[in-house]
């Protein structure tokens, strides 16, 4: 058999939907060439095209009814709506007049529109090019009278790109997808995530003729073709363990975080610009522990736009539906430059003007943000947090600016509330002298704190042993901050990679933390890690 003779091929890729899959290898060829055919009259070509569009539409509608979930239906509805829009189809019909055959006219007209999407700056719109290609090809198949080749259930499908409607036609049943092209924002990636189908994109090109079996292993970002028996056995046992872990995590996703010893832990999520909340149920968390406003304030115009900021914060508060939301003021600098705002060509940006240091250099920009935040605070439980605080004086200056922003709003008669002002604890100087700071709450920024404390960057794998979050220096410092907070009833929380690391969660609870903020994708896993741990410290710090 071929499988026994074919050598193992490992192809690297980027996981966009996690999981482990194993099955028969199916390599899909790129688009087929147009069949050459005698061109008919304008009327004949035109009616061929009408019939092909109608039949493609009918197929998509049938697929929509079968799909049964809103996500898939919306994707297919977009194609159905585009096919019904004369703006989309008219150019193809116009091309008949110029003497084109239906196939060529349709392809040319669609390619022009696909290119417009493909060249968009916005990743979402760029990814729609794939939906349009899907629609183009379905109509082309109808014109040629051919149907797509059937794919057996549970296959590992390798292709350049996989159109969403093709994805929905396949019975995955434990199979997976590996694409040489593809985008994490594509509809097919969203569908794969929603349905738990493991998927890699950007895999290396290779000639896979003669191979019949493959594994997709997103833990190792790898497509393994013709695995040998050792790889296959190891894979099967990992698949089994992953299945148990996933089932367990699902149990926890919308349940409160409670340790095995009974302590209630406040589990918050980190948010970038609020757009990721669209697909998230607020019931999965106790609130938002960190909104990074760098993605809301991308350029100089945004920095001056109080109304836009206000509406963005209100949107996030509306999603949180009464749960606390902590918004961090602009944390630019370091690796996050903004033209005209951050300092150019700093010799050492991570030790330079960043976070609050930069905000205090531009008090007008900070005031605009604080006004927007104080106005939004009237709409829900919003708290303000400042990043990169080093000395107590910096926090005092931030508070003075907040006070004056609030006074301004009061004078103007603008609806507002006075938000609590807290600080990020990420500079060792601040952590070591935490008793000197007048903060309403604390949030330990573990990533920067560890980097500054150990004088080692996270980016270098050689430094990984020095960067260990569980080393005594890190845990002692976190312990001291938490102890101070507990003694003075100051709410304290922790964000950073450490909070979503299952190895670290027990240690964080043991030093007394009862509130952590994690990426939305880690919520279930962290809750399950909390539920397995018996906490060593009977009394914890107050919630954030």
């Amino acid at each position, binding site marked *: 058999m071929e499988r026994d003779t074919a050598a193992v091929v490992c192809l690297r890729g980027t996981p966009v939907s996690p999981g482990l899959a194993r099955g028969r290898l199916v390599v899909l060829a790129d688009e087929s060439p147009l069949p050459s055919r005698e061109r008919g009259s304008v009327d004949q070509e035109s009616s061929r095209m009408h019939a092909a569009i109608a039949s493609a539409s009918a197929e998509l509608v049938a697929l929509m009814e079968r799909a049964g979930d809103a996500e898939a239906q919306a994707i297919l509805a977009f194609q159905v709506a585009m096919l019904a829009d004369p703006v989309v189809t008219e150019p193809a019909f116009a091309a008949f007049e110029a003497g084109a055959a239906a196939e060529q006219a349709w392809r040319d007209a669609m390619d022009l529109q696909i290119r417009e999407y493909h060249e968009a700056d916005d990743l979402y719109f760029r990814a729609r090019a794939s939906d349009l290609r899907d629609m183009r090809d379905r109509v082309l198949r109808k014109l040629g009278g051919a149907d797509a080749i059937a794919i057996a259930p549970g296959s590992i499908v390798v292709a350049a790109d996989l159109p969403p409607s093709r994805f929905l036609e396949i019975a995955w049943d434990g199979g997976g997808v590996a694409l040489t092209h593809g985008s994490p924002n594509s509809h097919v990636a969203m569908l794969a995530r929603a349905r738990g189908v493991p998927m890699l994109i950007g895999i290396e090109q290779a000639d896979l003729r003669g191979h019949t079996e493959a594994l997709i292993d997103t833990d190792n970002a790898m497509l393994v073709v013709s695995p040998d028996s050792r790889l296959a056995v190891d894979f099967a046992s990992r698949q089994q363990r992953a299945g148990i872990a996933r089932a367990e995590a699902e149990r926890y996703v919308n349940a409160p975080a409670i340790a095995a010893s009974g302590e209630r832990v406040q589990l918050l999520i980190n948010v970038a610009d*609020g*757009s*990721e909340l669209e697909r998230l149920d607020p019931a999965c968390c106790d609130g938002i522990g960190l909104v990074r406003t760098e993605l809301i304030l991308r350029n100089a115009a945004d920095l001056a736009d109080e109304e836009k900021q206000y509406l963005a914060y209100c949107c996030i508060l509306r999603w949180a539906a009464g749960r606390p939301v902590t918004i961090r003021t602009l944390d630019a600098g370091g690796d996050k430059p903004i033209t005209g705002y951050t300092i150019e060509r700093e010799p050492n940006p991570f030790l330079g003007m960043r976070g609050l240091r930069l905000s205090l250099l531009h008090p007008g920009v900070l005031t605009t943000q604080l006004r927007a935040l104080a106005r939004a605070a009237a709409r829900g439980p919003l708290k303000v947090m400042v990043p990169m605080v080093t000395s107590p004086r910096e926090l005092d200056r931030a508070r003075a600016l907040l006070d004056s922003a609030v006074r301004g709003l009061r004078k103007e008669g603008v609806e507002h509330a006075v938000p609590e002002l807290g600080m990020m604890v990420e500079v060792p100087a601040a952590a070591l002298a935490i008793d000197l700071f007048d903060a309403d709450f604390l949030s330990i920024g573990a990533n920067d704190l560890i980097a500054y404390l150990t004088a080692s960057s996270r980016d270098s794998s050689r430094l990984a042993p020095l960067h260990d979050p569980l080393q005594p220096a890190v845990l002692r410092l976190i312990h001291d901050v938490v102890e101070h907070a507990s003694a003075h009833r100051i709410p304290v929380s922790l964000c950073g990679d450490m909070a979503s690391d299952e190895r670290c969660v027990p240690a964080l609870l043991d030093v007394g933390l009862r509130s952590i903020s994690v990426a939305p994708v880690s919520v279930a896993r962290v809750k399950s890690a909390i539920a397995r741990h018996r906490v060593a410290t009977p009394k914890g710090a107050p919630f954030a």
Partner: protein
Amino acid sequence: MTSERMKAGLPRARSRAVLTHAGGLHARPAIKLTQVAKRFESAVWIALAEQGPWIDAKSIARVMATKTPYMATLYFDAEGGDAAEAASALARLVESDFTDDGNGA
């Protein structure tokens, strides 16, 4: 479209709303918008600025091509017998983050 917009004597109504849909005017909200626009006999246009350029709110291709980002202001202009209803229905749809499509949703 210019000639269409020159029709005199028909009722005309304008409205506006801020797009608070996370991520911008994506396929799903864009489809809803064109569906609501198509319910009216009036011609309905949409723009990202008060001065235009105005595009046909009943065409999904045109509406998607605006690539309207999150937090942008959408302007509506309707012309026809039910212009006032059309303009207010579209503003309501956007303001409600695409939950109020006038079908009692």
